[in-house]
């Protein structure tokens, strides 16, 4: 009897992760399966956690006045074709409906003369973004309230450790533990949506929060992709600052050690307004040419404009800026040393345009789903909203279609034994040393930002030793166990990142190869797909489908070749 092994919960649709992707997936599943049971599970409190809760919640929305096809093209081109075109079209198609739903939930999106106030965003030409008052915290809370009103069950403080599978390999729910008591939890579900975000290496502040769902999917046999891409952005370790875009509009400039505004040299059109990964790329180039340290010179912002930088409609940033001067004695309006910082990976679960993974019963939403490799400012949440809605609908369809889920007692018992052996051994040592070793390996720019075959092979060797230590580590308490599982997931992610980066022998967006500096559209309009092998990941490539936005004109072909190709 499963209920003698742990707390047993039966549901039709299980959604794991309550950020933007999961909140929308749960709402959509319930709307599409009103008679069914939908459960939204999170390791923390629904409505108060995930990157979503701490974000500004700028989001891409395509209104009926916009040209949908032009927006699809914008995002695909901005992604240099590393994008699921049909899925992106679906995401953008539902965005206006979702905006109106959010207004109905009580979220306020500022308007002028009855029209939403929208603004352009870095790196996109025509697609516009807008944000609700109160940012991500308010957004998450209103969605939570809507879920409660519509009868979605919330399961909080449960950390998922494994997915449940039947003999045929179909995912039939999840196993987890209560984050406080360590009680073993079994959720049996007809369809499971993973919305646990991608993986960070704990880059600081709220990006210390990470997700493990991509690796749960990997272990269950799902195909992952986009491991070679990451979210790079200029930042300072001194303080958290998301307002670079506005600062630049108000006069701030990136300068090098010689006081030169170097961005004009690299991106003559965009200069300092270029997308964050172009800024990061230029910073690395300056480093290579010996012109560091690099600064963001905020002293150029006029006095009268500065007040707005010391307040924010996002509650945590508002507290942060108010305390920065008094408590940390940091003046933002000087020359602050800046670096290109690797914030997180873009590793995600590969799905079809309906958000179904390669494993039956398993779907993905939010940043755990690999819709594209760059999300600009606003398409993170934009993609989460849309993939959440689409995954929820597909999960509802699957729950109706698939037969009752089976979870074997044997598998439940073995997962429970494995889990409890990892945190009841009384080992006092935390995983922090392991994490620090991993960060010391990954954060140097020669490994995660400007890549080279020799250095990546060396890093992979060092990673083996870290992984071995990770496998031997044990935790003294549930908190330590969760951290340990997260750190192991980071170690495995680092491996996938290095292996995929070795394979992609070109440079594209955030993937910069010193030994292959050019973009190669002829060879590399491809996904790198990753599956779990016996001892190591198995990598292969697959051409990227371009049903809506045709591939760029091949570079490097002569005019005669191009004519022949027609």
């Amino acid at each position: 009897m499963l209920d003698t092994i742990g707390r047993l919960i039966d549901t039709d649709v299980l959604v794991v992760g309550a950020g933007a992707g999961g909140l929308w997936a749960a709402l959509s599943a319930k709307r599409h399966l009103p008679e069914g049971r939908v459960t939204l599970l999170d390791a923390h409190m629904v409505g108060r956690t995930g990157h979503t809760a701490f974000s500004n919640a700028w989001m891409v929305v395509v209104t009926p006045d916009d040209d949908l096809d032009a927006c699809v093209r914008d995002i695909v081109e901005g992604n240099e074709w590393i994008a699921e075109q049909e899925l992106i079209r679906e995401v953008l198609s539902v965005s206006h409906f979702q905006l109106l739903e959010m207004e109905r939930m009580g979220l306020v999106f500022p308007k002028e003369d009855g029209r939403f106030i929208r603004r352009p965003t870095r790196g996109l030409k025509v697609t516009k973004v807008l944000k609700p008052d109160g940012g991500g915290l308010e957004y998450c809370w209103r969605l939570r309230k809507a879920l409660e009103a519509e009868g979605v069950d919330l399961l909080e403080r449960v950390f998922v450790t494994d997915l449940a599978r039947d003999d045929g390999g179909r995912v039939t729910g999840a196993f987890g533990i209560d984050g406080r008591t360590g009680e073993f939890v079994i959720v049996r579900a007809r369809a499971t949506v993973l919305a646990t975000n991608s993986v960070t290496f704990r880059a600081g502040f709220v990006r210390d929060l990470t997700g493990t769902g991509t690796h749960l999917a990997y272990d269950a046999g799902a195909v992952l992709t986009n491991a070679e891409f990451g979210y790079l952005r200029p930042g300072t370790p001194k303080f958290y600052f998301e307002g670079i875009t506005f600062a630049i509009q108000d006069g701030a400039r990136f300068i090098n050690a010689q006081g030169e505004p170097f961005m004009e040299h690299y991106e003559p059109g965009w200069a300092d307004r270029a997308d964050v990964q172009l800024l990061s790329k230029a910073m690395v180039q300056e480093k290579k040419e010996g012109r560091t340290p690099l600064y963001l010179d905020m002293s150029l912002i006029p006095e009268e404009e500065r007040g707005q930088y010391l307040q924010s409609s996002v509650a945590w940033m508002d507290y942060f800026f108010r305390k920065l001067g008094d408590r940390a004695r940091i003046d933002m309006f000087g020359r602050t040393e800046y670096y290109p910082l690797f914030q997180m990976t873009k590793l995600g679960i590969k799905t079809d345009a309906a958000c179904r993974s390669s494993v039956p019963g398993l779907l993905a939403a939010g940043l755990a789903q690999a819709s594209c490799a760059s999300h600009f400012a606003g398409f993170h949440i934009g993609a989460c909203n849309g993939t959440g809605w689409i995954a929820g609908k597909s999960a509802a369809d699957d729950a109706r279609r698939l037969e009752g889920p089976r979870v074997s007692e044997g598998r439940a018992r073995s997962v429970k034994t494995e889990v409890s052996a990892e945190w009841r051994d009384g080992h006092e040592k935390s995983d922090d040393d392991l994490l620090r070793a991993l960060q010391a390996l990954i954060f140097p720019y020669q490994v995660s930002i400007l890549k080279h075959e020799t250095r990546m092979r060396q890093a992979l060797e060092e990673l083996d030793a870290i992984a071995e230590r990770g496998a031997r580590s044990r935790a003294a308490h549930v908190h330590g166990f969760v951290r340990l599982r997260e750190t192991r997931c980071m170690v495995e992610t680092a491996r996938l990142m290095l292996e995929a980066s070795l394979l992609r022998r070109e440079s594209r967006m955030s993937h910069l190869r010193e030994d292959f500096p050019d973009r190669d559209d002829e060879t590399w309009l491809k996904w790198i797909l990753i599956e779990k092998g016996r001892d190591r990941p198995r990598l292969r490539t697959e051409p990227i489908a371009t049903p809506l936005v045709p591939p760029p004109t091949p570079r490097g072909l002569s005019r005669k070749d191009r004519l022949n190709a027609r």
Partner: protein
Amino acid sequence: MIVDIDLEKCTSCGDCDPVCPADIIHMEEQGGRLVPVLKHVEHCVTCFNCEIFCPVQCIDVHPIVRRRPLPW
């Protein structure tokens, strides 16, 4: 990082415990009263949730986090 909870002002409402996304604040019985106890503070993500949602403003979060290895 969270630095202080003023237990004199704290009303033991417990609101700060669930809103912490890093599992730092645990309500525990002490001297016949439930009080917020800080655990694993080195894992605090400086999200300010506890300070924001404490109804009597008795929590203090410091704005600086421990540095990570830099890219160079």
